[in-house]
């Protein structure tokens, strides 16, 4: 039971790393909390559902497609709104309210389009029978999802630490003004980071039916809290901290579900509040508290 919980927790942990990764990238680069993150994830989930139930496309391919599609959507979206938000007199608060409004808008469009019914994808859509790990058996879809998420995380790492644009992105994270002064095209770098973030959210959304359960237009809000909990446990603004946060989150979620199942829904909320109060800089982080 304990081994099962911990192993399943690690599989889920990779998934939640992906959920938090995009949010953390945007926060790191733009100091903006994208409250519409969960809504983009929800759109990705519906994309996977439509592609699978409509034309039987394997979600693994949908994941790639969702990434490309949402990334392309994110680039113009960035130029349309973010520079304007960043130049306002209180960017942090106004962008929070702005993306909150956007989340409402997306959720409303989705519920007009798809209705409030719960939908789900069968686990066999992704993979065949159970997989044995450490003598325990897990659904194949979990293992494949964890694999895809791990791959996505590695790709983001590669982008940030092995490419020129990634180095520029990290420079913007450290100091926006100084990056601009040394000739980095801050808006282009940020726009790409924003696009990648939406792409990652949609990819995580494609996998959501296998890890989170049935999908509804209103699922975004709970996801936001989970994603925020993940990146706060890791470190705000450090994309790879999300991996650490995701693993801790996944393991504690599984332990809760197996030992205290009826209270498991409380976990993300309480974990988030507790970490914010005790160590707001995250478990890996430096000091960031203001007040």
């Amino acid at each position, binding site marked *: 039971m304990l081994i099962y919980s911990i192993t399943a927790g690690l599989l889920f942990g990779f998934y939640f790393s992906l959920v938090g990764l995009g949010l953390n990238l945007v926060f790191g680069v733009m100091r903006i909390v994208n409250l519409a993150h969960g809504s983009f994830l929800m759109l990705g989930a519906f994309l996977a559902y439509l592609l699978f139930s409509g034309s039987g496309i394997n979600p693994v391919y949908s994941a790639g497609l969702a990434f490309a599609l949402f990334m392309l959507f994110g680039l113009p979206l960035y130029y349309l709104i973010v520079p304007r*938000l960043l130049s306002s007199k209180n960017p942090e*608060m106004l962008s929070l309210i702005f993306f909150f409004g956007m989340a409402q808008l997306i*959720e409303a469009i989705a*519920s007009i389009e798809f209705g409030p019914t719960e939908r789900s994808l069968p686990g066999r859509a992704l993979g065949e029978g159970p997989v044995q790990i450490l003598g325990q058996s897990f659904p194949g879809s979990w293992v494949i999802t964890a694999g895809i998420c791990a791959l996505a995380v590695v790709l983001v790492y590669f982008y940030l630490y092995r490419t020129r644009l990634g180095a520029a992105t990290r420079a913007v994270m450290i100091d926006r003004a100084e990056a601009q002064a040394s000739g980095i095209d801050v808006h282009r770098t940020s726009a790409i980071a924003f696009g990648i973030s939406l792409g990652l959210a949609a990819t995580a959304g494609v996998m959501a039916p296998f890890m989170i359960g049935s999908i509804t237009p209103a699922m975004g809000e709970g996801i936001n809290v989970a994603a925020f909990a993940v990146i706060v446990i890791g470190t705000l603004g450090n994309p790879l901290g999300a991996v650490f946060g995701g693993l801790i989150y996944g393991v504690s979620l599984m332990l809760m579900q197996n030992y205290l199942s009826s209270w498991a829904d409380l976990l993300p909320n309480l974990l988030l509040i507790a970490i914010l109060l005790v160590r707001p800089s995250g478990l890996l982080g430096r000091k960031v508290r203001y007040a």
Partner: protein
Amino acid sequence: MRKEIRDTLFILVPVIAAFYYLPSIYSNQLLFFNFIVFLVLAQGVNIIYGFTGYLPFGYVGFFGAGAYGFSLPVMHFHLSALPALGTAAGAAILLALLLTPLLRLSGAYFAIANLAAAMAAFQIVSNPNLTDITKGPYGISLSGVFAPDFAYGVAVAILAFTLLTVIFLRNSRFGLALQAIREDSVTAGMAGVDVVRMRTLAWLLSALVAGLAGGVFAWYVSVFYPETVFSTSFSIFAIVFALFGGVATIAGPILGVIILYGTYNTIGITEPQYFQLIYGALIMGLVLFLPDGLVSLFKRWGVNVP
């Protein structure tokens, strides 16, 4: 004439008189009751967000705490309605005290932690394991104290209390101190403002009015589910109304509720998604084009709005 008296005469008295007499002219009392609830909630958001800058995404938590703070004593101990309103206020204050450490966080951190707190409160109240105490997800029914006319009158009184609080904040040194904290807490502290005590007081006041609103809501409707009184749309509506009108003023949130909630009711609420759509777009438009609300237009034209 002193400003408090002027604001009381020209804003509080007409609003209260209107809500007191309107049900006898147009008999849809429930409609006016909902207006009152949203006026109180929008002003409550105004107290905490407008004056201190803390954005409470989970403001509905206090409303829900008030509703359950009212219902549980009535259900288990057959308390009568007015003392139960006291316990409703007590429950909201208790929750606020529990959450005061959140005030150490700033900006987005506070907003999201507050949202998480409200969701946690909902999950605890609606947990099936607590069915014996809270009726869990099955909802509350309070037929014993059902008295809509009386409850409506009390709601009007709660609205008057809330407006008085905001008038006081708008015109007093206390309100000025809060706004100083909002602009720069370190400088305010240097200038001799007791930052921690002031913002805690504002937080508790804001929770108190939401708790009273929740209590009187539970009393008025008598039958409700936990997802009704913890519904995020209460937070959304209250924040949108306050922002639309303009925070840190007395008239702003009132204008916001009357215009927006008025439209909401005129068009009809058969399709709530469409309102979510409109409000979502409205929030985005406000942030981009009118971040200080409707009253800032008047200020631009040189008219001072109280």
